[in-house]
């Protein structure tokens, strides 16, 4: 597993993250080194282990916690672009030919 080749550019695209070219080169070296370090955990014997008994899911009831619209203005005032009571976004499907 230590010989793993990491396609940093593909990872960056998966993470929707623009990475400067020169930084891509550094990361191509650094990330495999970091992965080689964290891989030491493969040596730990975890057979027969289950998730901690103390852990449980906490759910809130499936109903509106407050009156509709109570926070609309507060939240929209933080949005970069809005149209009325909605957040405006750029087109999702590009017209560019692939």
């Amino acid at each position, binding site marked *: *597993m230590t010989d793993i080749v*990491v396609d*940093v550019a593909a*990872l*960056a*695209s*998966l*993470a*929707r*993250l*623009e*990475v*400067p070219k020169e*930084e891509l080169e550094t*990361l191509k070296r*650094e*990330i495999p*080194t*970091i*992965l080689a*370090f*964290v*891989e*030491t*955990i*493969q*040596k*730990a014997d*975890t057979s027969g*282990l*289950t*998730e*901690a008994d103390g852990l449980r899911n*906490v*759910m*809130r009831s499936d109903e509106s916690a407050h009156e509709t619209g109570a*926070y609309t203005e*507060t*939240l929209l*005032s*933080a*949005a*970069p*672009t809005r149209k009325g009571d909605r*957040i405006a*976004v*750029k*087109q*999702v*499907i*590009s017209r*560019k030919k692939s």
Partner: protein
Amino acid sequence: MDLTSLTIAGARKALDAKEYSALELTNEYLDTIRKKDGELHAYLEVWEKEAREDAKMADLRIARGEARTLTGIPIALKDNILVEGRIASAASKMLENYRASYDATVVRKLKDEGAVFLGRTNMDEFALGASTEHSAFGPTKNPHDTSRVPGGTSGGSTAAVAANLSLACLGSDTGGSIRQPSALCGVVGLKPTYGAVSRYGLIAAASSLDQIGTIGKRVADARAVFDVIRGHDEKDSTSLPDSFYKGIPKRNILGVPRGFLKEGVDADVLAEFEKTLDSLKEKGYSIVDVEVPSFHYALAVYYIINPAEVSTNLARFDGIRYGLSMQAEDISGVYAKTRGEGFGPEVRRRILIGTFVLSSGYADAYYRKARAVRELIRGDFARAFDSVDAIVLPTSPTPAFKFGEKSDPLAMYAADIFTVPVNLAGVPAISVPSGNVKRDGATLPVGFQIIASHGGENTIFAIGEDVEIPSA
């Protein structure tokens, strides 16, 4: 007014006795900030006008005889804790101009007390780092030697307390981010039990590890603020029920993981640790060895789980709802450009590592395996606490290091070696100053870390008070 020896209890007494007003106390801190923070850069923003208003309100309350523990007490907040209407940037370009839409639960509690907010303190961007060098707005300097880092990620908060730029601070601790900078700045830093303090209104880094905690000059100060901010909060589903805290019997037995200490600690830092152990022995504590074999894997486990959760949490910063937004042709361009522009290099590195360890084909070998080893670490803690009241370790393997000294990411990650097991298990821990070491003619503080089982805050406060030098 001597800020150097001032404690919360001391300030409370003086305020109630009308020796000085909350406004005078606040002005004293604001003056000190004006004089010293140009060099130290502990603050990203000082709320001068608002702090004076807070102080005037506190004075009215004191005059009415309605003062509580923190009424009129000046406190600073790490820049990842939300105060409605004020900027909370997490020291990132992404949130440089973001104004919080609501108060964090801890902020609401401090407002109810009538505390005075001095400003927001510097940190590593999105609480990722160990030196405060990763702040997008420039590093904070260590008050003991300005050529050295204050530690991180709550380095602004710990430097502020160490240099008397605030009486106490709130920080957050994901892998040592309160304790390590507290050790490097010579102050007391508390990471409470996971769930003891609500995370509602804390900008998330790694949600299963993050915990808000307190920083002060004395154990009693860290405790006083903790007592105000703790408690169940229905807005944080991981917050513990108040019934969780029951008395834990105390036997004064301390465990030292000798095997784990061999991972590498500076000789003089270790010598200071041994000296503290000797002084505790003289005070009646028994010191025994404890075996915690899985701690050997803690750093590796942490640097899988942390980036995994960070990459997930930071997915919300996309230029659509709030924060930085870059123009582009279509929505995916907005995402990629905004994130590329808004996040700094360490944040980008963590997002990419997190994306990798969670990706199909690798998640079993990395993320799921790390979660299993995390259970081993929890188990080792639980077994150890069957026979000891607390586990003690140096907080940091080294004293404060020079700027730029740890440019290799793995070297920076190793600074957390003695603090990450605590977050992985969710147990409480405190760092208390205990001795000094010399580096290039500078005298640098060293921290002694005390770890108890879940809900064992009272245990670590009691032991912590036995570690700290009695106040004059």
